[in-house]
Every structure is written in C-alpha cells, then in structure tokens.
C-alpha cells in the first residue's frame, strides 16, 4: 500500500497533462478552413472592428486604443492614444480613401490622417459612437449607443439625424450595393434594413441570436454573435445559418470583414482588460472554389 500510493499519485498527475488549450472552434461548414492570422505576438491587443480593402486588413484595436493595418504579415499602427483615441469600435474606408472610425468611449466620428487621427464630428449627440457606414452619396453614417440614434455626418463634419426611428444600440452598420443600410442593434438583438425613404424592415432573427457585427459579401450577410460565440451566414430572405461556433477564450467574437475572394476575418477579444485577442480568417477551401 505504501508503494501503491505514490505510484497512483504519479500516474494521476501524469494523466493530467494538458490535452489542449483554452479555446476551440467548431466549424459546421466544411467548405472553410480556419487559421489565426494575428495575435498578441504580432502586436495587436483586443481587436474590435475590422475592414478589408484592397488586400489590407484595417483593425480597430480597442484594447490598444489604436487603429492598425495588417498588410501581408506587416502590422502598422496608423493612429494611437496620442491622438485622443480611447476605444476604437468600427471603421470604414470612404471612396476617396479616407479611413473613418468610431470610438465608443471618446465618442464622435474620427478619421485617420498622416499624423495620426483627428475628430471629424464631436461627441455631442454621439457620445458612444458604434456602427459606421459610408454613404454612397457622400459622408458617413454613425450609430450612437447612448442615444440609440443614427446620424449622417457630411464631409465638413456637420451631423444630422439620418433615421427618425430610434434604436437602442446601433452597434454595427453596413451599406448594401443598392444603397440600403443594415443596422444591427446589439442591445435589443434586432437587425433592420433601411431602404431609401427610410422604410424600415426588421429582419427576423432567432431569439438566441445577438448581432454584434455585420458584413456583406455579395448578397450574403455575415453576422457575429458575441453573446453566444456564433458566426452566422444569411442569404437574402433566408434563415441565419450557423457556420462556426467559437468557444472558451474565443467566445467573444466581435468584428467581421469579408474579402472579395470569400475570406472572412473575425476579431476575438479574449480579455479586453488584459489586452488579449486574436484575428482569425475563415478561407474557402480549394474544393469549395471549384
């Protein structure tokens, strides 16, 4: 017995060796592969909004109070807290190449300049700016989480209410090619589509879907659900379909961007206060491209 105890204890400890780390992804669509494209070792912290444009991934690095871009494997910081940024939320590129972003702590609308970033519109009325979309007719639309309103900000920085209807937290917005505006309300878990003339149509979602960020790829709307760690794909007038489930340290999925080749980029905030996070990419496999 005296010999048996240490042997059993040693065997028990040996059996406790790690079989994995603390994050997992369940991929329901076999036509995608998944890879980490950036993490803390690359220089990002806890990323939120993402934008893909012309081979560059723009990142609203909320944990690091910075706007960065990832081009290939090269990460560059475009603006940081020295410009007054606190919690960059989401970002969009206008037709003239200006990179605009929102900040849900500093408020207002911001743009990246060669010297960092500057505020385009003040935080009055937009104290918690969240969703952002470029208006094809000029200017930028901004959703405010404090008032629940969506504003239009012209190039000269004048803001006016775009949509009369109030929401609770217009967290993410995206323009469709037809000019209509999708707005995800993350507080009441609703998704709306506003067409010209402000006609509002609610897109019915399952009761357990809490839309965090949305992105369009063709006619497909991609939705992250940070409350449940789910990535959804939704065809026009179709039902949302779960593409992937992010678990444990990956569960808090936030921003999303779609590339023209079908790649989907997702930001993950593992621990915002500790500045930990990842960006993963879902890429269509060779078989699915054929």
């Amino acid at each position, binding site marked *: 017995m005296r010999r*048996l105890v240490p042997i059993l204890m040693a065997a028990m400890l040996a059996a406790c*060796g790690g079989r*994995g780390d603390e*994050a*997992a992804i*369940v991929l329901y669509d*076999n036509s995608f592969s998944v890879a980490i494209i950036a993490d803390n070792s690359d220089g990002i912290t806890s990323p939120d909004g993402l934008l893909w444009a012309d081979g560059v991934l723009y990142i609203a690095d909320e944990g690091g109070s910075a706007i960065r871009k990832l081009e290939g494997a090269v990460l560059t910081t475009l603006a940081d807290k020295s410009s007054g940024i606190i919690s960059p939320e989401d970002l969009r590129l206008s037709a003239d190449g200006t990179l605009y972003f929102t900040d849900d702590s500093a408020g207002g609308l911001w743009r990246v300049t060669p010297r960092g970033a500057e505020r385009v519109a003040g935080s009055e009325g937009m104290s918690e700016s969240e969703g952002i979309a470029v208006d094809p007719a000029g200017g930028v639309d901004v959703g405010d989480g404090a008032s629940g309103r969506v504003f239009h900000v012209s190039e000269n920085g004048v803001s006016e209410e775009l949509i009369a209807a109030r929401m609770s937290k217009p967290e993410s917005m995206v323009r469709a090619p037809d000019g209509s505006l999708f707005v995800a309300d993350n507080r009441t878990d609703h998704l709306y589509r506003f067409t010209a003339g402000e006609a509002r149509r609610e897109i019915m979602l399952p009761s357990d879907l809490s839309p965090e960020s949305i992105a369009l790829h063709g006619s497909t709307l991609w939705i992250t659900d940070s409350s449940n760690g789910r990535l959804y794909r939704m065809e026009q007038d179709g039902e949302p379909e779960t593409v992937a489930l992010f678990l444990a340290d990956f569960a808090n999925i936030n921003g999303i961007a779609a590339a023209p080749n079908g790649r989907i980029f997702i930001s993950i905030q593992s621990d915002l206060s500790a500045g930990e996070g990842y960006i993963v990419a879902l890429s269509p496999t060779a078989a699915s491209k054929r």
Partner: protein
Amino acid sequence: MIADIDITLFEAANQIAGRSFTLDALMALAMENPLVKGGPIAACFLFAWWYRADAETLAKRRATLLLTLAALFLIAPVMKLVSSQGGLSPRPLVQSERTIVLESGALRPLSQVAYTAPETGLAAGLTRGAKGGTVAPNDLASFPSDHAALFAAFAAGIFLAMRTAGLVALGWGVFGIMLPRVATGMHWPSDMAAGALAGLAVLAAVLLAGRTVLVGPVAAVQVWAEKCPGWTQALLFLLLAEVASAMGTLQRLAELASGILGR
C-alpha cells in the same frame, strides 16, 4: 497513438447507441437517475456493512468502508483541481463535428469521430445543442471523468472490504456507469481510465492514512456506530444517497454559497 486508441475504443462502444430506443432509455436512466446510477453500489456498501461476520472481520470491514466513504467526499474537490489543470477536451459528441482547438498559440484540428447519438436522454439533448451551435463549457472539459473517479473508488473500497459485494459494485461501475457514458458520447475511454485512476489514488491515500494517522479517529467512529446503530443507519443513508447522486446536493450548495458570497 493514445488518441487513436481512444477513438477506436469510443467508436466501438458507440455502436450500441442509437439502435434501440429501449437501450438508449435504459442508458439514460442509468446515467441520470441517482437511484439507478449509484443506488446499486450504495446497496453493496450497506450489504457489506451489515453482512454477518466475526467481530474482528466486521471491525476491519467497517473501518475500510468508513474510510472509503471519507475518500468519496474528498474526490469531488480533488477532481475539480485535477480538471482545472488540463486543457480543453471536448466530449466525443462535440468532436463529432469539425473541432479545432488552440494549442500553444496555434490551431490544431481534432480528429472528427464517427458518432451515433442516442435517441433519448441527456446526451441526445447535448448532441442536438452541439449540432445547433450550443456547447456548454462543461462539454469542453470531459477529461477526466468525475463519475469514473467517484464510482471506481466507491466500488474498489467495497471490494477491499468484502469481495462478493465489491465484485457486484465493480461490475455495475463498469457496465452501469462507465460504459453508458462512453457509448453515448459523453466521455472518452481515456477520461474514464484517468478518472478511475485519480479516484483510486485518493482512496489509496485515505486508506493509508486510516492505517497510520487516522487509526484513533476511525476506531472512535466505530465505537460510536456500535453504540448508536439508529443514528449510524440514518447517517449512512444520507451520505450514501449523496454519493449515489454523484454529490449533486453538495455541488448545488457550493454553487449557492458561491452565488451568495459573490453578490
């Protein structure tokens, strides 16, 4: 290598699931109903406790049974500690989907297993959830099995006290408790082996203590049990009911206490 053996053994055990509603329902009953799950082993314990023998044999037997009971109440916290040290280990029913885990900063795909879900019971519900995008944190922590630790130690302790009752308890532990958990996709065979090993290690430590530092207290409890058979029987009933439910009440109380203290 070990993972391959695990998958092969799992897929073999899973052959009995999803083929007959009756068998699935019986496995669900054995997994979810405390009386059916741990009741037979608790009955073996009481059988060994009361089965006639000379005074010396009875005293030795009851000392072993008392120490076994004490060990069982140590196993739950030990297993919590043990499972907190390991990484993610999705249940087989989760790994029937394409699962990728983060290991040392890189993503590693796990082998997707061929899995047939049972038609009814907890595993059937968890499988529906996993297919629909719902996986609870507990379903990513199957290694090692708490049930295997608890009931392997329970049955082994009875076996050390009395061979015949112990054999029945070990038989039920393997076929009534461990096999359904593997067959329905709740656990891997390695979860069971590691859990049983951990439970046996705790039991061995407590038995060793019982023969050294705890000789006095064990003898005192036995004297009290002789004097107060009514109280002894009532206490044994409560403690064994708790063990049979795999410490369900204590876990609930711990959650409540943690909730109250955390407010």
